[in-house]
């Protein structure tokens, strides 16, 4: 009995140890690539490029799609921010996905809208559209009311109604910096159409001062839970996506702020209306389409353009969000499982998919197993005590060190939080991540895995704080 237990402990200890080493090596490489890329661009005066592309002659028109479901607290500020974008030619389509609250009424009232007709090219099947409104104040602002069908369905309606060859998706509660669209469109404009999708950097708006759609003072939230998410976003966006983008291996660009070529999005079948993570699903479908058609087009992540979005402020809502994200991840990976280790899909199949399966999808199971192992090993004492210490150190290495590294990398290259006190707070909280935030999120992600088996889904409703002045309540 004792020997069997020893054998089991040794086996699982070994598995967890090897997993940790793989993750640490992968993260180190990604960190290095991100560092080199950000170092290259760090001192660039981006205003020059902005000024060039702000001229309609050199830019491409974009349809901005804002799917909204029960977003009455944040939708007006979001629309204001989009109307204030420095971009020469856009149309703004707010798609109300059968909200139960006053989302549509608030938009109609605030922007003086009237019923209107808009040409529609029904290339994707969707739930029926009920009404279309157009603003009398801003003729390029439209509201499309439709039956509830989920975010993917709302975006498909937007694509059908979109007039321009590129569309940008923005969440109903998100706020864009005025030059974000210009910057995210830059790789598309300068690549002769080689780049078919691009995503920007998403940051957390909680705690910031926002007035009529513009962030006017960047301050860190006072809540530890929000600060941890800020750090998490920095790590995910700066470290992970820059490296994957460099080798055209991106599988996720955030639905909160991304641009797609309409032609390619439709060719890939549009948004999936049955999966939860429609943003990841769309990118995977495009990558799959490109590889199957043997096309050399790219999907890129652009670190500089920033989209601000609300983060959950309570544990229960964060838990729901993380469960949902993980369900979406597993569903997409499972739907396209034949791409895994399939050389036909190039680096996406040979590197991205295995990485996402191992680290992003099943990583939580192994990592939470690691936590349990540490606890058990402490009780067993003796040789296991050393295993426990070793694993704890590896947890610190890959959790804390990379988190602090990401905070420093961001501060050095993009400097979104200029106050030293904010940087120090983020670093201090990163030191505590392993003790509370990490295990919680691991647990919720495993819940997501389990829920995937039962295909339990929802729009992922979140109580909006309406982090903005000037937004009607």
């Amino acid at each position, binding site marked *: 009995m004792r020997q069997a237990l020893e054998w089991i402990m040794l086996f699982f200890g070994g598995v967890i140890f090897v997993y940790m080493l793989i993750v640490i090596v992968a993260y180190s490489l990604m960190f290095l690539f991100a560092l080199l890329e950000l*170092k*290259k*661009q*760090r*001192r*660039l*005066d981006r*205003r*020059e490029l902005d*000024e*060039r592309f702000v001229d309609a*002659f*050199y*830019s491409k028109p974009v349809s901005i799609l804002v799917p909204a479901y029960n977003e009455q607290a944040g939708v007006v500020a979001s629309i204001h921010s989009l109307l204030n974008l420095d971009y020469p030619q856009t149309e703004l389509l707010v798609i109300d996905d059968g909200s139960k609250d006053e989302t549509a009424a608030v938009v109609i009232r605030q922007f003086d809208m009237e019923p209107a007709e808009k*040409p529609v*090219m029904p290339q994707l099947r969707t739930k029926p559209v009920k009404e279309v409104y157009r603003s009398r104040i801003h003729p390029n602002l439209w509201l499309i009311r439709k039956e509830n069908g989920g975010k993917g369905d709302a975006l498909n309606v937007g694509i059908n109604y979109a007039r321009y060859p590129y569309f940008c998706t923005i969440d109903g509660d998100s706020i864009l910096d005025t030059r974000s669209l210009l910057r995210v469109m830059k790789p598309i*404009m*300068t*690549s*002769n159409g080689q780049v078919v999708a691009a995503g920007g950097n998403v940051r957390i708006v909680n705690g910031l001062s926002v007035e009529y759609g513009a962030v006017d003072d960047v301050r860190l939230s006072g809540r530890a839970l929000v600060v941890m998410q800020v750090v998490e976003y920095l790590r995910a966006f700066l470290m992970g996506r820059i490296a994957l983008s460099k080798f055209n291996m991106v599988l996720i660009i955030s639905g909160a702020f991304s641009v797609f070529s309409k032609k390619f999005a439709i060719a890939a079948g549009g948004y999936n209306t049955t999966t939860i993570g429609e943003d990841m699903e769309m990118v995977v479908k495009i990558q799959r389409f490109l590889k199957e058609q043997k096309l050399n087009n790219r999907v890129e992540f652009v670190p500089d353009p920033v989209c601000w979005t609300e983060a959950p402020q309570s544990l229960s809502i964060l838990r729901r969000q993380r469960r949902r994200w993980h369900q979406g991840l597993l569903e997409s990976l499972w739907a396209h499982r034949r791409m895994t280790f399939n050389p036909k899909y190039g680096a996406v199949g040979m590197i991205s998919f295995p990485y996402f399966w191992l680290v992003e999808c099943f990583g939580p199971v192994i990592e939470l197993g690691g936590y349990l192992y540490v606890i058990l090993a402490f009780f067993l004492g003796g*040789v296991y005590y*050393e*295993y426990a*210490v*070793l694993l704890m*150190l*590896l947890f*610190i*290495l890959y959790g*804390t*060190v990379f988190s*602090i*590294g990401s905070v*420093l990398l961001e*501060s*050095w290259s993009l*400097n979104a939080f200029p106050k*030293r006190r904010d*940087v*120090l707070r983020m*670093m201090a909280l990163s030191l505590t991540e392993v003790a509370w935030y990490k295990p919680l999120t691991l647990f919720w992600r495993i819940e997501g895995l389990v829920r995937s088996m039962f295909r339990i889904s929802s729009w992922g409703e979140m109580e909006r704080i309406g982090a903005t002045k000037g937004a009607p309540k």
Partner: protein
Amino acid sequence: MTGLPIGWVLGGVVFLLLLLAVLTAYLFIARAAEEKRGRRAAAYLERNTAAWFRHLRGLEPAGEELIPKDRGEAAAVEEVFRSYLNNVTGEAIRERIRVFSNRHLSSYYRKKLSSRNWSDRMNALYRIHDFGVDSLAEDCRALGNREVSRDEQFQLLLIDLAFRPDGFVERNIHRNGQISEVENKELLFRMPEDVFHETARRLDELANDTKYALIDVLGMKQDIYWLPFLEKQLDSNDQELRIRALRAIDALGIRTPDPILDQAVFSPVWQERFIASRMIRRLPEKKALQYAEVLAGDESWLVREELRGLGPALERRRLEKEAVR
């Protein structure tokens, strides 16, 4: 002991945490230095904004106090120049900026041109072009002979065009496939008339992206002078070129000659019929409706949609025809 590398891992973690602590200190020191530079720039601007106004308006020569003494002050001068160039037009102001930059900023930019940092080189290239620092033309040419990024390549082309328009086409025609279509458009737009004409004359030697960009720019220029040239492109074997030429003719904003319209309305290519459906709006109603009748049943949704506005007039015409019968 089990031989687990705990000591090593512990050492590694401690080392990394110490390294991060050192990097944090470095970051804060660097940031403090940057803030100091910012304060120096602000102080320079406060001292000299009025003097710059008087100098750039030609009211007084540039005094010693305007010459930047460090990076912070150089950045302040750049802001002054950028502000005037973006907001105030005038050859005299541009010339004074050029003279001052050549005299007092060229060594600063020369140093940046040889920097190993891509951002520094790019910023220098932007300024050299914007401020007209032609004394660095030779340095830019030398940089162009090295392996440079596509962004640098494009900026170097803009600089070459600005400083040495004579022979620009001959010197660079072999490079025209190296930049994107949007960059080609910008380059073509910035060309003096004679250089542009020479480029158009050598259309057949251009890479496809440059050809397409040139045709698009002709449409944007809306100059009727180019109509025969565009008409000639409609006979090209390159379908994309034909579509773009037709679009450029549409962009000229004139009534399209009948032979062109006939060809477009009955084209097997939907994009050409789509442009035709836009062109017919500039015809007299009777003529427009004749064409619209042909296109109303088009297989392409976009063509039919473009004609939607003509729907009531088409219906009226159908009823009139029936009445005559």
